[in-house]
């Protein structure tokens, strides 16, 4: 017995172990069961959605082997975002809404086919509530009591509520006008006022607008007034007579008529089409609810759901009585194509792919943000660079404008000074030429006058001697007559003298006027003036290399005096076709005096030897000087006045001007002596810049012989401060 008892105990333990193992196994299997979420659009609120879809879902869950599907009602405002954010395995909503989403990887499972006979069947039924739904018996009793109280009124409304149309199942649009309206067909809506809910509402404005467009009535042909939600406002507006027609969602008229809000007989539908719906529609009716499986849903789950949806009707007949109505009212068919709806959206230019071009761009930017950022950075940098360069260019342009203005002013002043100098030179030359014959006339006149007076004196003496020989009366008369004649002659001669003196005074005044305009003395920088003269030469300076070397930096000279001296000499050299023009400033002794000498040398071939004498000096006669300089000046319109002006200006400074022919290479060497380390080379380039460069290179000269104009200026003109200290600093 004891053994038997032990065997029973072991058997009992084994059974317990087996049960425990089974329990663990079941628990393990149960642990593999997944929970999936079904996102359902709840346009009428969560409670309504829950009430409508939960029974169907419960049945579906019952038919699933392990997995569970949880219903999640989603508000219309943000259901798209929630679907994209939360990872729903299943989505149930209007087909038109899916068009607006990214449905890549989705599978369309079924489209709900509403049974026109059972549209209302989703309404809450008290009879469906079971005792098991309540926690206590008392609650169940109270509920049954309430059911009995309401049964009479419920029965009274039963007939009325059967076949109650609803806009929830299908999508379509109805275009209503007043019964007595003259609008008979779609074309009559031109230039009419139409009311609608929202421009984006597919089951409303878009379908009718598309219909009108197909019939040749464009949106611009009629005036549309959007009243927004609630949708009843459309028909209210029509009722009030504010508009000619109203675009209403499918079944709105029927709903409102059912609620007694409107008298349907007073209104007429435009373009009625035959549909399966209980409601009147002007357009084709599109299915509303479509079940889709997202990429999160496993294939097994989808397969199970499909099996249930399309075999559910047969199976449900064997199910309990409470689920018959639910299964019967939800008839699922194969998913309908959304091509028609998409085509309408395309034609109305409302398709998401059309609308969300900007969004696509944003997505693309998001995907390629590194490159976009780089490109953006480059663009920003380029823009900043462009702005910076533009500013630099603007500033440079302003500088050039100011510089050009300064050059123009300088040129103008220089021209004015030159004009004065020319006038002075010409009037001086004219005065000289007139003065010479005037002097001759006056000399002769005065000589004659003196001789005449002397002769009269001699005659008087002579007459005294011959008094005794001639009769007194005759002689006296003759002498008197002669005296009168002599007096007339002398008066005439005196008149000549007076007039010549007067003319001489006039000439003196002219000369004084010509030489009076002596500007104020200023400190002049020799190098700066030289560069300014190069600028003034303009295009003429292109191709010429300018050299500069000076022991002195500044001079105390009348304003523009040095400019005139240099520009005249440089122009002269340029006209000779020089390729090198050199300016060398050095102290030199001449005529036992120390001078600052500015040597302006070119390689144009030199002066005509015949015109250069051994004792080259400025103190030649004006006519000779002019002749010599005229030969030098090759300019077609040149008067040969340039060097004459220089000579005159030098003289006005108590200086001298000397002309000579020199070896160009010697001059180069002389320049090097001044600046022993380098030569200063100034080149005027095509872009108008004057560049000062230092070079050791020796450039070949055009001619071996060069013309040199040496301007001897008194050394006191050199500013005492810079005479030695500024050596080689220029």
């Amino acid at each position, binding site marked *: 017995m004891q053994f038997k008892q032990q065997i029973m105990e072991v058997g009992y333990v084994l059974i317990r172990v087996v049960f425990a193992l089974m329990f663990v196994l079941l628990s393990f299997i149960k642990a593999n069961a997944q929970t999936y979420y079904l996102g359902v659009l709840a346009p009428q609120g969560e409670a309504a959605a829950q009430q409508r879809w939960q029974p169907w879902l419960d049945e579906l869950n019952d038919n699933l082997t392990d997995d569970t599907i949880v219903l999640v009602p989603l508000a219309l405002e943000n259901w798209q975002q929630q679907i994209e954010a939360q990872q729903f395995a299943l989505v149930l909503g209007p087909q038109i809404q899916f068009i607006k989403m990214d449905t890549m990887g989705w599978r369309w499972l079924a489209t709900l086919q509403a049974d026109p006979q059972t549209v209302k069947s989703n309404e809450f039924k008290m009879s469906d509530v079971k005792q098991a739904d309540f926690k206590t018996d008392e609650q169940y009793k109270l509920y049954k009591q309430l059911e009995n109280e309401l049964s009479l009124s419920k029965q009274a409304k039963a007939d009325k509520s059967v076949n109650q149309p609803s806009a929830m199942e299908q999508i379509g649009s109805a275009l209503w006008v007043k019964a007595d309206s003259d609008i008979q067909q779609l074309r009559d809506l031109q230039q009419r006022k139409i009311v609608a809910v929202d421009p984006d509402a597919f089951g409303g404005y878009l379908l009718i607008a598309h219909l009108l467009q197909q019939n040749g009535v464009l949106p611009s042909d009629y005036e549309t007034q959007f009243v927004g939600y609630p949708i009843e406002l459309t028909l209210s507006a029509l009722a009030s007579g504010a508009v000619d027609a109203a675009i209403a969602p499918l079944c709105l008229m029927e709903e409102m008529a059912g609620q007694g809000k409107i008298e349907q007989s007073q209104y007429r539908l435009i373009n009625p089409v035959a549909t399966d719906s209980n409601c009147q529609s002007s357009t084709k009716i599109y299915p509303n609810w479509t079940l889709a499986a997202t990429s999160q849903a496993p294939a097994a789950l989808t397969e199970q759901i499909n099996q249930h949806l399309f075999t559910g009707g047969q199976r449900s007949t064997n199910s309990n009585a409470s689920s018959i109505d639910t299964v019967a009212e939800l008839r699922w068919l194969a998913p309908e194509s959304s091509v028609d709806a998409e085509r309408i959206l395309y034609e109305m230019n409302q398709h998401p792919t059309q609308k969300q071009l900007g969004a696509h761009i944003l997505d693309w930017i998001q995907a390629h943000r590194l490159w976009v950022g780089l490109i953006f950075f480059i663009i920003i940098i380029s823009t900043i660079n462009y702005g910076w360069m533009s500013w630099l260019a603007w500033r440079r342009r302003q500088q050039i404008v100011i510089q050009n203005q300064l050059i123009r002013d300088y040129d103008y002043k220089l021209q004015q000074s030159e004009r004065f100098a020319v006038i002075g030179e010409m009037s*001086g030359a004219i005065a000289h030429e007139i003065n*010479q014959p005037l002097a001759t006339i006056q*000399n002769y006149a005065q000589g004659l006058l003196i001789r005449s007076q002397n002769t009269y004196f001699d005659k008087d003496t002579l007459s005294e001697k011959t008094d005794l020989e001639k009769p007194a009366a005759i002689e006296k008369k003759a002498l008197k007559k002669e005296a009168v004649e002599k007096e007339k002659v002398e008066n005439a001669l005196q008149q000549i003298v007076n007039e010549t*003196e007067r003319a001489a005074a006039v000439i003196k005044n002219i000369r004084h006027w010509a030489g009076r305009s002596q500007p104020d003395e200023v400190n002049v920088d020799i190098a700066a003036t030289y560069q300014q003269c190069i600028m003034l030469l303009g295009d003429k300076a292109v191709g010429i290399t300018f050299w500069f070397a000076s022991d002195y930096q500044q001079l105390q000279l009348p304003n523009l005096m040095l400019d005139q001296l240099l520009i005249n000499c440089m122009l002269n050299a340029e006209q000779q076709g020089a390729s090198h023009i050199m300016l060398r400033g050095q102290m030199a002794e001449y005529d036992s005096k120390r001078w600052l000498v500015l040597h302006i040398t070119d390689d144009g071939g030199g002066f005509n030897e015949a015109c250069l004498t051994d004792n080259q000096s400025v103190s030649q006669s004006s006519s000779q000087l002019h002749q010599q300089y005229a030969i030098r000046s090759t300019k077609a319109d040149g008067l040969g006045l340039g060097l004459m002006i220089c000579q005159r200006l030098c003289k006005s400074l108590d200086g001298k001007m000397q002309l000579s022919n020199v070896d160009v290479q010697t001059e180069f060497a002389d320049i090097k002596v001044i600046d022993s380390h380098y030569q200063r080379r100034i080149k005027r380039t095509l872009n108008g810049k004057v560049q000062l460069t230092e070079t050791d290179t020796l450039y070949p000269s055009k001619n071996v012989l060069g013309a040199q104009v040496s301007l001897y200026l008194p050394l006191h003109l050199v500013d005492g401060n810079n005479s030695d200290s500024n050596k080689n600093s220029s």
Partner: protein
Amino acid sequence: MTSIPISNENLDSLTADSLSDNLYDKIVPEQLVIHIIDDEETVRHSCEFLISSLGLTTQIWQSALTFLQQVDIYAPAVVVSDLMLPDMSGQELQVYLNKHDSPIALIALTGNGEIADAVTMLKKGAADYLEKPISSRRLQEALARAQVLTIKRAKLYYIGKLYAQLTDKEKQVANELLQGNLNKIIADHLDVSVRTVEVHRSQVMKKMKSQHVSELIQKLVLLGS
């Protein structure tokens, strides 16, 4: 006072060496030759006409170089010269004359009439500066001044030449005489005997072509001035 006509013919003889001591005193200023230098022929001839009208002896030259080549610059004379001349300007002529201690007095003529030129010329020793056209009154004044000046310069030149012949000792004696010292004092000063002083004094008088001490003193004073 006897005057010695000085004309073109005897210009060559009128040199410092040939002139006797008394000759300078006998020179009549009006009889000095007036040299006219101008490159403009008409001006040159008209100027000659005017100056000769004043009763003065004239000679015309086309350029300063020709003038210098043909005229003894140590003889007293007056030059009326234009400043703007070929080859050698009026300024350069003045510098040349100064450089060679010529007694010739130069009257500068200019057509420009610039004050700076006039000042420069006068500083360089020109007798006067005239502007063309020349006023006869101004010309006469200038000529008169120039004539006196050239005679004075000639005298100076002559005396200078005489003085240059003296030995150092004789110059010391001449200097003592100029200070009015007697032979004895001079002998003391020079630390020589009175007899030696007398010999030197006699040599000084002879070389300086002076008859009397007063005449010697006059020459030395003139030289010193």
